[in-house]
């Protein structure tokens, strides 16, 4: 491999140059996919911390029954902003960051297709985040309507709601531009010989995710635009006083909202599909079926939205259709889980931190999938709708699913990005602390939900106290464990051991086989030659 690396190093343009700017201006003006990937990842980590603090405010209030820490109105603002910031500010940008860093390197392209557009896609994000944070300081405070922004409450909120709507417009624009960039890069800029069915699965999942984003994000933009015009321009899309219908909002929102679930999950599947084969030292089992399963999940995600709203009073035929369609998604998802397990079967497994997080993902995501199946069944969902069971379910797929996959990805590619190794012992500590505290936080929430505790309430009956205390302790443990992650990454960048050319012997995509470690600032200026 070193011969290949030397060849790339020997190339005239491979030295690091940053477009002539230094310091902050370098980052503001950068059009380099690696710089922008880094910006996305740091931005999402900052947002992860902000959203995490909000989660801890929620858990502090729920530590005991009664009102201790915050008033109910602020509590509602916390649940709303925690959801919005984690979904749109932390998880989605994190995976766009991975896409920026990895996709050009994995398909042998020199950069993203539209480098300047890429810069703009990122720099829209801080302004959206600013608007969200700003909404706390306007009269009436941030919206306390839940991250789903259901009408009619949204029609009645203060000016903070308008700021949130504009923030969502900007976030949506950023996602759509980023997606167009990713699709174009993958479809037009693959190295000669890199056919679609030879691409690493991470590229496939992102290609499909990008299509989902292009199709779903504009629908959300439409929904919040309707809310905006209902608020200020006298339309009555959702305002029942004028003949509108709040349930219509729920339909439009979840038409976006369910594909959004897979927008978050599919790139995570992609990362896991890179990590598990690398540490099993085997090629991914059932590559083609993985591609088809991903596409099947994406298509099905557009016809299952009403399973989020079984209780609105839809006809029983509607409930049956959405129930069967939803349970159908378990089939391609099951194909994926079995393929990952089959990849590990008889592999030469080693358990470095990325692999630990990948296996943690596999275990916990599957549990989240099973509770999802439970919730897909109408008779059970009517009991569990809007209880902590739902909260537990989606944190299993969002945190143990998407976030653990992102951790796996960071540990996996950090040597390639920085040229330095992270501290393996601390990495394992980070995994085990996250794994244990995650389950302490969220496993008990299943019990609370089954016992009937509603979500989004600041106060609760005495009988729920024990499990809430345990959940709150777990949440603080989980939150503090993430500071260890920050320390590990900073330590690796500043004083980490120099990474070997190929730190993971089982990794076989282009960035490992055709590029030196760390990856040069400009890679694949001439397309690699593939067998």
């Amino acid at each position: 491999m070193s011969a290949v690396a030397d060849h790339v190093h020997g190339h005239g343009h491979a030295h690091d140059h940053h477009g002539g700017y230094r310091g902050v201006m370098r980052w503001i003006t950068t059009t380099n996919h690696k710089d922008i990937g880094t910006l996305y990842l740091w931005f999402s980590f900052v947002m992860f911390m902000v959203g995490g603090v909000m989660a801890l405010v929620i858990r502090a209030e729920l530590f005991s029954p009664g009102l201790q820490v915050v008033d109910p109105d602020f509590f509602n603002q916390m649940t709303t902003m925690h959801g919005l910031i984690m979904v749109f500010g932390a998880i989605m940008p994190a995976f766009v960051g991975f896409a920026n860093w990895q996709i050009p390197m994995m398909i042998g392209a020199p950069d993203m297709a539209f480098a300047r557009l890429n810069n703009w896609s990122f720099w829209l994000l801080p302004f959206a985040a600013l608007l969200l944070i700003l909404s706390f300081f306007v009269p009436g405070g941030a919206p306390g309507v839940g991250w789903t922004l259901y009408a009619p409450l949204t029609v009645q909120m203060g000016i903070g709601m308008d700021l949130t709507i504009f923030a969502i417009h900007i976030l949506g624009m950023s996602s759509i531009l980023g997606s167009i960039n990713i699709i174009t890069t993958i479809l037009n800029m693959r190295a000669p010989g890199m056919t679609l069915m030879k691409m690493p699965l991470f590229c496939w999942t992102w290609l499909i995710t990008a299509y989902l984003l292009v199709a779903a994000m504009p629908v959300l933009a439409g929904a919040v635009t309707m809310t905006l015009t209902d608020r200020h321009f006298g339309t009555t899309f959702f305002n029942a006083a004028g003949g509108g219908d709040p349930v219509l909002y729920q339909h439009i929102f979840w038409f976006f909202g369910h594909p959004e679930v897979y927008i978050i999950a599919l790139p995570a599947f992609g990362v896991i599909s890179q990590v598990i084969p690398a540490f099993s030292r085997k090629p991914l089992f059932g590559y083609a079926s993985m591609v088809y399963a991903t596409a099947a999940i994406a298509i099905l995600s557009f016809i299952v939205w009403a399973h989020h709203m079984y209780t609105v009073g839809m006809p029983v035929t509607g409930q049956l259709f959405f129930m069967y369609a939803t349970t159908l998604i378990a089939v391609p998802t099951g194909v994926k889980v079995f393929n990952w397990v089959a990849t590990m079967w008889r592999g030469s497994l080693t358990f470095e931190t990325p692999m630990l997080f990948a296996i943690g993902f596999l275990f916990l995501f599957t549990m989240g999938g099973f509770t999802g199946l439970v919730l897909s069944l109408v008779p059970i969902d009517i009991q569990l709708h809007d209880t902590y069971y739902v909260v537990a379910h989606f944190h299993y797929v969002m945190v143990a699913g998407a976030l653990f996959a992102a951790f796996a990805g960071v540990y996996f590619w950090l040597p390639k990005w920085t040229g330095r190794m992270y501290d393996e012992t601390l990495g394992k500590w980070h995994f085990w602390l996250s794994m244990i505290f995650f389950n302490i936080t969220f496993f008990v929430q299943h019990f609370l939900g089954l016992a009937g505790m509603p979500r989004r309430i600041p106060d609760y009956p005495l009988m729920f106290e024990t499990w809430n205390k345990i959940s709150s302790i777990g949440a603080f443990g989980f939150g503090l464990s993430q500071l260890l992650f920050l320390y590990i990454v900073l330590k690796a960048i500043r004083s980490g051991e120099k990474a070997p050319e190929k730190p993971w012997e089982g990794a076989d995509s282009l960035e490992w086989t055709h590029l030196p470690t760390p990856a040069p600032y400009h890679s694949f200026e001439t397309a690699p030659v593939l067998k």
Partner: protein
Amino acid sequence: MTAANEALARDNRRLLVRLAVVAAAMFGFGFALVPFYRAICEALGINYFVKPEAAAPVNTQVDVSRTVTIELDANAHNLPWRFRPLVNHVSVHPGALVTVEYEVANVRDRPVTGQAVPSFAPRIAGQHFKKLDCFCFTQQTLAAGETRRMPVTFVVDPQLPADIRSIALSYTFFEVAGKGGGG
């Protein structure tokens, strides 16, 4: 090389425009869901905001598949009253609220008080014959020569045994002694 780069840039721009058109179309699709939603609700008759007349209550208590004939009968026991139902029989669906009227006339030259007592044939039908209002609930006092119309409002219970197709409802008026001038 430059020609290839230009071709790539052109292909990229073309794809950008196409995907932007898709995004714009999906923005429109969100709004298209509004009339679509109304049409679906109207077709399925599930949204009362959209079609208020669809909200008219449907009585699920009435068993329209069955019809029971109620034969009406009237007697006066040793009483100088002319007592008759306005119709001799009426067809009702079990569960439906029905009102029938009787007419009673005092042919004597002084006030008389009487009390009506109902009876049913077959007798078991009496358990399923729910009277909501009846002149038989109270004593009736008629002035000399007075004629009065009196309602009976009833529901035949849908639990009525299936083999009963007609019910005879018979009222007999008895004079209440020591009242109304003492007969």
